[in-house]
């Protein structure tokens, strides 16, 4: 019988790819993530608070990780969330999604599922109608699994 490593241990293909490429890529992706944040904020450093990410501590399946984001905002014509940028700083391409809102959105909440190649930070940045920006970051671990109990 021949088993591939993946069959034997449930290593995600993404993690294997990461190992083959090595750590330089992860620095490059961290840079790309910073660059994407700066482009979104127009060069300003986003503040902490108002935005909160909801992610699992450890992904059950790195290929489809549920990610939720909520921004604290009255969502009125005077004060609303304009958009939220989601990034994954360890993926080959950090860009994941941008959600656009308006005052009539009611709540500034969004949920999606994303693929994570390996253990990394998921980053969410909110841009308000007045141009101010807020950031949250959560580490999500992508693990081989097994052996627990």
């Amino acid at each position, binding site marked *: 019988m021949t088993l591939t490593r993946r069959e034997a241990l449930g290593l995600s293909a993404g993690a294997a790819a990461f190992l083959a490429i090595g750590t330089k890529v992860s620095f490059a992706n961290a840079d790309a993530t910073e660059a994407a944040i700066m482009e979104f904020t127009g060069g300003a450093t986003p503040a902490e608070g108002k935005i909160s990410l909801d992610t699992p501590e450890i992904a059950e399946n790195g290929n489809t990780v549920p990610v939720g984001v909520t921004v604290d905002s009255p969502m009125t014509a005077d004060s609303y969330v304009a958009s939220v940028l989601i990034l994954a700083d360890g993926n080959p391409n950090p860009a994941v999604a941008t959600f656009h809102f308006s005052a009539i959105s009611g709540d500034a909440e969004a949920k999606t599922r994303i693929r994570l190649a390996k253990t990394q930070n998921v980053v969410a940045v909110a841009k308000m109608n007045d141009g101010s920006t807020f950031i949250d970051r959560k580490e999500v671990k992508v693990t081989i699994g097994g052996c627990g*109990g």
Partner: protein
Amino acid sequence: MFSRREFLMAATATSALLGSGMAGNWSRLMAQQGLTEDALLSMQPTGNLTLIHITDIHAQLKPIYFREPSINLGIGDVEGKPPHVTGADFLKLYNIQPGSPDAHALTSDDFAALAQSYGKVGGMDRVATVIKRIRAERGNDNVLLLDGGDTWQGSYTSNVTEGQDMITVMNALNPDAMTGHWEFTYGQDRVQEVIDELPFAFLGSNIYDNEWDEPAFEAWKMFERGGSKVAVIGQAFPYTPIANPRWMIPGWSFGIREEDIATHVEEARSEGADIVVLLSHNGFDVDRKLASRVDGIDVILTGHTHDALPEPVIVNNTLVIASGSNGKFVSRVDLDVKDGKVAGYGYRLIPIFSDVITPDAEMAALIDEVRAPYEADLARKLGTTESLLYRRGNFNGTFDDLICQALIEERDAQIALSPGFRWGTSLLPGQDITFEDLHNACAMTYPAAYRSKMTGQMLKEILEDVGDNLFNKDPYYQQGGDMVRVGGMGYTIAPNRDIGERITDMTLLSTGEAIDPQKEYVVAGWASVNEGTEGPAIWDVVENHITKNPTVKLPDNKSVKVVGI
């Protein structure tokens, strides 16, 4: 007291045989302390409400030996804090006399010698006696019996009946609620079928439907006991679909989801709960962190990591209770509830010394009945062990070494990997190894022993990954299993370092050569979480090995070096 006299005589005889001052000391102490059922069970009652907690029974219906860990490291903030204290340090911390019954129950020091005198522990008929007695003493309407899960798995009979032997026995004990972990390894359909028929609540605040991301289980339940409203929130093992096969429970998602627990605490309080209890399978460190972050939980009955602590650990006004495993302990928590608060508590971690506690006759008969169809198989002798065989501890135990040896020889491999489960009973030097004993170490629903080729790089990555699941500084990133057991390869581990930097000096033991990251090695292992894994069942592999080598002799493993702590 059916065997107290025999018991004390045996103790005296053993101490005479050993002839050491130590042995004489503890047998005398035992006599002085009068190790009787009354002494084990009696406690000064407090308040009107009693919680009885039992957890991680792992399907052990009959008395067994279970050696507590000699190494159980805590990393980061929990370094040196209970339960990460073992041996003499543990005895000192809790002011327990070495060689005493409590010392033997709670630590591994002199395990084999003391076990000869104190006898086996556990047995659900003895547990039944304790539970009945507490109910009689406190009054049925004042007691809640709560099962923390890992109840249906861990023995031959549970595996062949898909947990039915345990379900039958537990139903007879009439619990009020349970939560789960290994229960889920019988698959989603079986679990659903059982829960639909269960005469009590199966609670899981953190189990969600995968498709619609909606709660899939009853999260909490209100009980009226001892004149108080008691809310019990259930928390299943958060990493079930990662540590165990996700394909067996495709419709369910887990996770810690502490915000859900906070929501349920608020709901319970708004519905008039005087007391909020979290019946948890999170593991000790996860529950300690959770207690510090979620307000308003009065008691956490923790499970999963199999820790047994003689006193609650108090965090943010929450009593965290750790009740051991394998039916070796039952916890009694008395609560004095006043104005929606715990005004006082009493706690007793009751060790179930099976030669001291009289079996409950009804339960003994029921256990015999559920085991009867399998008795001939269970009793079959496979070999004898000259060494103490055990698993529990952060790194290779001797029972794991036996399994790894069998994998290497029977599957013609260079290196063996065996999961660091915390279940698995112990055998004393001189004991027969029966079919039942072997299955106590490996009975589960994904037993295929694979044979595969892996590079040195891959092996290192596996050790790093499992090491991080155990030693991550943030408990929320821990999965609660111990380190993967390795045969045929030695390594050094620095638990305090980060992932990728813990494992060094990987060495192929057969040649003494360093493991080459680029080179492929033949690896045999079992308990892969992946669907479609092929190979013979691990128990057949180990049985074949023991049949060929019927006298087992295994010194403690020296091929794992722990540094930096």
